[in-house]
Each structure stands twice: as C-alpha cells, then as structure tokens.
C-alpha cells in the first residue's frame, strides 16, 4: 500500500449490536422488512431455543430452517438434552404460527466442506433468497457450519444489495466451560474460507497465525500448529475485558508451555479483545492483517491464518474479519461434543444473554 493510498473503510466500522432486551429490539426492527427465516441448529446445547423463544415472544412471524449437525446431536448427557430440545421445539411449533424446514444431512460429506455444501444448498433450493430477512442463530451450531453459512449469506447480500442478515448468539461463558469434546480431527481450512491457504514452506508467503485462545484448546492449537508448519509469527488473542477479569491470565497459565516453549510466541504479540463484543475481535484482526500486509509487503505476501477456539461471540468476529479480508480459517474441530452435567434449565436461562448482530441490510444502506 503506497502512502497516498488510504485503507479501505471497515465494513463494520459502525455496527448494530444489542444484548438482552436490545437484542430482541433489533430482531423486531429487522422483521419490519419481512418474515424472519431463522436458521438454527438441532443439537444438545441448552441455549439452542433461546433465539426462537425471543422471536416468538415478540410475536414475529416466519419460518425455521433447522440444520443437521455433522457431529450428531451430542453424547452423554447431551443426548438427553438434544431429545429435550427436539420435544420443546415441536411444542413451540405446534403452539405458534411458525413453519419448519428441516435440512437433510449430506451423506458422505466432509467435516470441512459440509458447511459450504449446506450453505450453497440453501440457495440452490430456494430455501433462502436474496431478499429474505435471515437470522442465523449460531448458539447450537459448530463453527464449521456457521462460518460458511454467514459467509455465504454475506456474499449473497453483497452481490444483490438486498435482504437483511442478522446473527444471534446466546452467550454464557459458564456454560461454554461445561461443554466437553472428544477426539479432535486433523486440522484443515474450512471450505468457503480456504482463501488460497497454503502452508508449504516453498509458498514464499509469510505465514502468520492468530488463534483466539480458549479453555482446553491445547490439542486443537497443537494440531493447527502442525498444519501450519511453524508459522513465522503467532498472535494469540485473549479475551479481555471479560466477565471473569482473570480469564486471560488463566488462559496464559493453562497454555504457557505450548505458547511460549513450543510455539515461541513473543509476549508482545498477545492481543486482547472484548469477550462480549464480536466487532472488537473483527476490528483487531482486520487491523492486524492490514498493518502486517502494509509493513511486510516488501519482503513477501502475507498469509494471516485465523482460528477460533473460544466463545461463539469471538468466533463471529473472526468470521467477519476472515470474510472481509479473505483470511484462511482453519479448524481442528472435535469429533463429538457433550456436556459435563445436565445443567438446570433456569440456571441456563439466568446465565445466558441473547445477543444480536445486524450484519447486512437496512442500517448499512
């Protein structure tokens, strides 16, 4: 980038974001453009129906697009929770004027491509059109599904200039910590977000990696580090400010050996982002990429690879930055999920906050 060239403005320099009651207000405002198509997951997560309840509580109309989960509905206590979620969903549909479109799994699909195939499929079958008001509730969706879904809908919106796109997420750091995983898969880029990813030593690119660090993510981080074949720079992203002010410090302690001994992370490379605001992570990653690209362009092409191992809120920020800047997103997602114990429904409700992010549509036109 030359000195006279000014950087492109951030798509979400100004943004629409609300928590709690404000999240409902945003959904209501978006629904003014037409009935809502709520895309949601069909799993064990106790927060799976949070957004739907809010939509129904506000008296909004529309339909539900229920996505299949590649890792199944959950294991252990998760299986019971998934069954309970299904029963509750059936009851809500029966009691309210809302339709259900159930998307079938794609047999033989791969964990890295399933998301893009489903996202393309929604458009090919007309389940989603360019003029729809779409709400993607990622509370019970894995990142390999919601990254391509959000990316595909942003692409559609960008090309058509019509429609509304919102993302909702029921946030609960306490509940996140209760979710346990089983057997990570080999790392790889999520299809739709491959963006020319190439980790070969002879690619001539400067390989940088910005992982959003979360609890118990050591094996995932290791698998990705192996895939990236020793990135030249690593920028660990830690949540701060956070509900638990010591969370970032605890994460450093938990991953101390991995980050500093094996990955040889420079302590000054650590970045902090607001745990509760996806747009902060988006801004931080975008600025990191743009700054590195400008500074290092003389010695080579920069490839900033991102990966998300923390909350869905922060992952959404990663998704936005990756989509806008064409950054490769890699994952070493677990093969199945479960939950440590069967959390009490009222505790889940009390500890969770619904958040809405309006990503495309009226506010930006």
């Amino acid at each position, binding site marked *: 980038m030359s000195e006279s060239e000014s950087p492109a403005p951030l798509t979400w320099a100004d943004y629409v974001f609300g928590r709690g009651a404000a999240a409902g207000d945003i959904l209501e405002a978006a629904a003014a453009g037409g009935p809502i198509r709520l895309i949601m997951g069909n799993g064990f997560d106790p927060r799976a129906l949070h957004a739907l309840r809010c939509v129904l509580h506000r008296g909004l109309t529309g339909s539900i697009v229920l996505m299949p989960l590649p890792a199944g509905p959950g294991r252990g206590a998760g299986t019971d929770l998934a069954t309970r979620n299904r029963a509750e969903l059936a009851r809500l549909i029966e009691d309210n004027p809302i339709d259900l479109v159930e998307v079938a799994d794609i047999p033989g699909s791969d964990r*890295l*491509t399933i998301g893009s195939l489903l996202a393309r499929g929604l458009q090919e079958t007309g389940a989603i059109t360019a003029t729809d008001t779409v709400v993607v509730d990622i509370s019970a969706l894995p990142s390999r599904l919601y990254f*391509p879904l959000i990316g595909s809908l942003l692409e559609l919106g960008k090309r058509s200039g019509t429609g509304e796109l919102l993302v909702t997420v029921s946030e609960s750091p306490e509940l996140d910590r209760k979710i346990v995983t*089983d057997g990570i898969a080999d790392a790889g880029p999520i299809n*739709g977000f491959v963006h020319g990813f190439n980790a070969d030593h002879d690619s001539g690119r400067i390989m940088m990696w910005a992982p959003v660090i979360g609890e118990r993510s050591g094996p995932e981080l290791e698998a990705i580090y192996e895939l990236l074949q020793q990135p030249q720079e690593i920028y660990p992203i830690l949540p701060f400010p956070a509900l638990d002010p010591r969370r970032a410090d605890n994460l450093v302690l938990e991953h101390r050996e991995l980050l500093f001994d094996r990955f040889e992370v420079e302590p000054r490379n650590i970045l902090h982002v607001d745990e509760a605001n996806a747009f902060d992570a988006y801004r931080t990653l975008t600025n990191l990429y743009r700054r590195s690209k400008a500074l290092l362009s003389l010695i080579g092409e920069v490839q900033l690879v991102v990966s998300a191992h923390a909350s869905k809120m922060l992952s959404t920020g990663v998704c936005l930055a990756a989509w806008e800047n064409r950054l490769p997103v890699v994952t070493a997602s677990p093969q199945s999920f479960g939950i440590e114990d069967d959390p009490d429904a009222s505790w889940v409700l009390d500890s969770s906050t619904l958040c809405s992010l309006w990503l495309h549509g009226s506010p930006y036109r």
Partner: protein
Amino acid sequence: MRSYQNPFRSRTSEQQRDTFGFLRYVGAGVLDLLPEAVWDRPLIIRSASGGGKTTLLRLFTAESLAEVASHREDLPELAERLEKVGALSDDEPLRIGFLLNLSRDYRTLAHSGAPEEVAGRLFLRLLDARIAAAAVRAIVASVGLTYPADTCRVSFELRHTDERAGSAATRLGGTKGDEIVSATQQTEAEIVELVDSLLPVDWASASRGHAELYSLRLLSDAAIVVDGNRLTAEPLLLLDDGHELAEYQRRALMTSLLDRDISIGRWYAERFEALPAQELLQDDTPGRDFEILELEREARRTGGGGRRKFDRLLHDVGNLRATRSLERHARGARDFFEYLEDVGSDIAPPVVDAVRASAYAAADGRVQYQAWIEEADSGTTFDRAIHIRAAQILIERAKGRPQQQLFDTGSNATFSSMIKSDIREAARLFLCKEHNLAYYAGEDIVVGASSQNVEQFLRICGDLFEYMLGRITLNEPPSVSAQRQQMLIRRASDTYWRELPSRVPNSSDVLALLNRISQVSMTETARPTAPYAPGVNGIAISMTDRAVLLDSELRARIPGGDRLFDALGVAIARNVLVPDLNYSVKNTRVMVLYLNRLLCPRLFLPFQRGSFRERSLVDVAGWLLDPVDPPEPPDTLFET
C-alpha cells in the same frame, strides 16, 4: 533472570523453515532405515503421526541435498549416508527431490459437491500442475538460482522415448520452466476458487481435468536443461501426508505412481490412518512392484539390527538437540544422556534390610529357602536388593508347587541358575515399586518410552530438559537424578493417558479397550510369583480369532465385534496399541497387542515385550460392551 530455550520443545525438525537448522537436528541414522531399492520403483513410507516420515522425505529435497553438499564438513554423517544411498556424489547432489504435501486441499476437492468423475479429473489436474511447478522450483534451487525469476532458464528436453510426453508437456503449459509455473498458477486459481465458492457452482462447466498424472510422463521422458546444459541429477518426487486424500484420490494416485512406464524416483508417505482397519491388521504382502517402509515396524525389527538402528537414531536426535544448549548454558561437555543418572543410585541400606526381612518372612523358616536368600545376599547394594527380591519370587513360586516338584527343583538347580534375566527384571520392578525407588530412569528407558515414535521421544526429552534448565538457572549442574527422571516420565505418562480422549477419535471404545488391557496387565504383573516375568503389558488373540475379526460377516455375529474392529483400527493407526502379528507361543500363533510404552509408567508396568495374556475374541469384544473405569496407579504418583 536469563531465559533459556528448550531445544526439544521449540520446533520439531520437520517444521524448521530454515534448511540448515533442519539438517542440524536430523539424526542421520534415519537413513539407515531405508530399504535398498529406492530409486527404480515406488517407495511407500508409513508410520503413525510423529514417526519421522516428513523428516525422511525432507532430507531428499533439492534444498537439503544442496545444503549438505555445500556444508559437508558441518554435516559429515548426513553427507556420508546420503552418498551411500546414492543421493549425493563427491561434489554434487545426484537427485533433485521436490516435496509436495497432499494435506493441502485435495480432500476438500473430493467433498466439494462436484460429481466424483469431475472431482477426480480436477484432482489429477491440480496435482499435476503442482508437481510440474514443484519440479521447476527444485531444479532452480538445485543449481543455486532464484525462484521465480530464473524459471525461464529451465527447460525440459524431450527424449521421445515416450510419444505421449509431448502432449503431456502441452497440457502442463509447455516445456519451459516459466511457462509451466505460469500455467500452474492459472490452474490453481481456477480450481481453488471453484471449490472454495460459497455460492452455487455449475460443475458442468468445470469439467476440464486430467485422466492421469502427465507430469510424471514428462519428467520420465525429458532431460533437465538449465541455460542450455543438461543436468545429470535425476528428479525425485516426494509426496507427503497421503492419508489426507480421499480414498478414490489415493487409488488414482497409486495407479499413476505404480505405472511401469514411469522411470523417475517417487516416494509416497502416509500415516497408518489411511489404511482401513483390515489392512492394519494384516501382515506384509510379498511380491509387489513397490517397496514399503513402515517406520515403527522397521524400528522394532530385531533381525538386521532395526531396533538397534532406531535406538541409535533417537540417541543421536537427543544429543544433537541438547548438546549445543548444554554447552552454551552450562558449559557442559557431556552428551545429553550422560546427565541422566542411572537406576540404583537412590537405594539406601535400610531398604536392603527391609527386602531381606520380607524374603525371610516368605521363607517361613524353610532351610532351603533361607539358603537361597543367603546366596542372593551379595554384590552392590542395589544388586543385592534385586537378588534377594528375586529369591523371594522363587520362594513364592516354590511354595505354590507340589512337594515333589519342589524337591526336584531344589536338588537339581542352583539358585544362580534359576535367576534368569526376566526374573531379575521382575524383581527390580517389585523392588522399585515397593520401596519407591526409581525404575524409569536412564537412557534405555527414555529411548524405550518413545515406543518407536520420534515425536513422543522429543516430548519426554523436552520434560527432562526443562528440569535441566531449571537447575542451570539455579547455577546447579544439569544432571537429573533417577528419582526425578521417574517422576517426569510418569507425569508424561499420566498426561498421555489424560489427553487420549481429545487426541483419539472414537475414544470411548479405544479407552474401554485400553482400560481392560491395563487391568489385565496390572493384575498379572502384581502377582507375587511373577508368572509372566518381568510383567505383562499387552494381550493376545489367536490368529484364528484374528481371521474371524477380519471377516465382516463372522465379526458381526460377535457382540461388540464391529466396535472392536473399529477401535483396534484407530488404536493401531494412532500408535496407542502396537500389534505384533504371528507371534509364536505354545505351538500356536497369536496377534499380540501391546500398550504404547508411554502408557506403562503411570501404572508401573514394565516396557519389555514378550509378556502378555491371551484372551478370546469374544471376551475382548465384550469388553467394549462392559467398560470399566480407568485403572488407578498402584501407588501415589509424583510424590517427590
């Protein structure tokens, strides 16, 4: 306070971007594992993750060979061995190796939603383009030119031994280096964009692909020319991470690699995960057109010195990594392993007294038994304690026998003739466990704990070196006591157990199997008569049962059979269980399934192979339907 780097943790050698840095840490002994015929037929290299495949392949890249050729004095062992296998001459490389990683985006292409026929052709076209461009790049590197600026100085001169080579060149963009690189970039952009699309794709318009790997045909027929001069070095295709391919891609690639008209060297590496459980449970297939190098199996092979070679390789890797740091930080002139104190240094005389008292109690006043104890009571403190403990094992065995047999044994055999190495080893294990002495210490144990896996070895050494750095920081010599080694190794073992659920797919079934094998091993090892001395660390099923397991129809009739088959496939592929097929025992043949050695220290089990318990297939399959809790260590871990 100064901070020190741990050379075992910082980077695995294969990940070193700097070629010299990579070569400096490579144990040249890895080249001794290669079979003899590696240039005239395809070589297939297999191992579990961390087995050393990539390191081996990377040694033969044009960059590595050029670096070794120009730094012979700094890398004498590597140079000598590369010369011996025919990759280097006195003054220049004889091979131009180019390494392609198959983990990139080929599998994604297979699952991109394209019809299989289209995806298959696109796969071969993309791989073809990348092979051709990688060859050009390697040629440029081998003659010290700059990429991509000097690609125009490279060309392929057709020898016309294969009439199809001309059309192959046309498909790849031409015979000039720069034309090939440019065509590759176009192909990449076209296919990768298509596959990565988030919007619907019209596959019908994207069907231009390749039916075979034309690049191999071109490279086989053409002479390599740089600035008008023919090179004598031969191209060598190195393909890594084949397990990442979809099954049909792997099949198509193999067909191309096995083509007898192809004359260039071609090596292909994959993890065991690529193989179906069926193949993992099979033995060698003789009479094939290719060579197979299975690193772990080669390392375990006793004939031909495989195990010795591999142990020496690990020894070299450990020293290469640590020596420089030890010299710099501690002014230490010794090898890494010399800082590890040997077992037996932590025993005190009261322990011998306690062992003696226990043996006499077992003898229960019998004169003959007391004579054994007296005979055993000599030597250094540690040896004395081991011998007395061994005498106690013999006493326990004798007490369990009928009187006549006991009398026979006592009259014909001397005590020293009855103390075989296995009993001695069992006695050492009992002694260390009962008196909190170090059993897991010393170079052999550290090398053994790797279970023939370099990555596992580096982790254990990393833990030991971490402690050495701590001592260096405190201005103390970096030696590690035997007790401390044991604590660190058992802690590494504990971590390995705890991380299994997140590292192994299908972990609940794999763990159900491991827990039961561990339970059997612990029970048998703890028996006072040490019937399977030095102790058990595996189970076996008969080869007949194994045949049933391999037959899907017969297997389905056994409750838990299919689950066992899948769990075994995962456990073997991930090196959690180590199979030994066709093991001869009591006039029958069995398939032994040993625990990965790093699973043993947590449970205080021995490393030695050869002791296992046989179980029926029905019993083993039933274990998966009736899982038990993980066995607890027989003592309090990590007290020191």
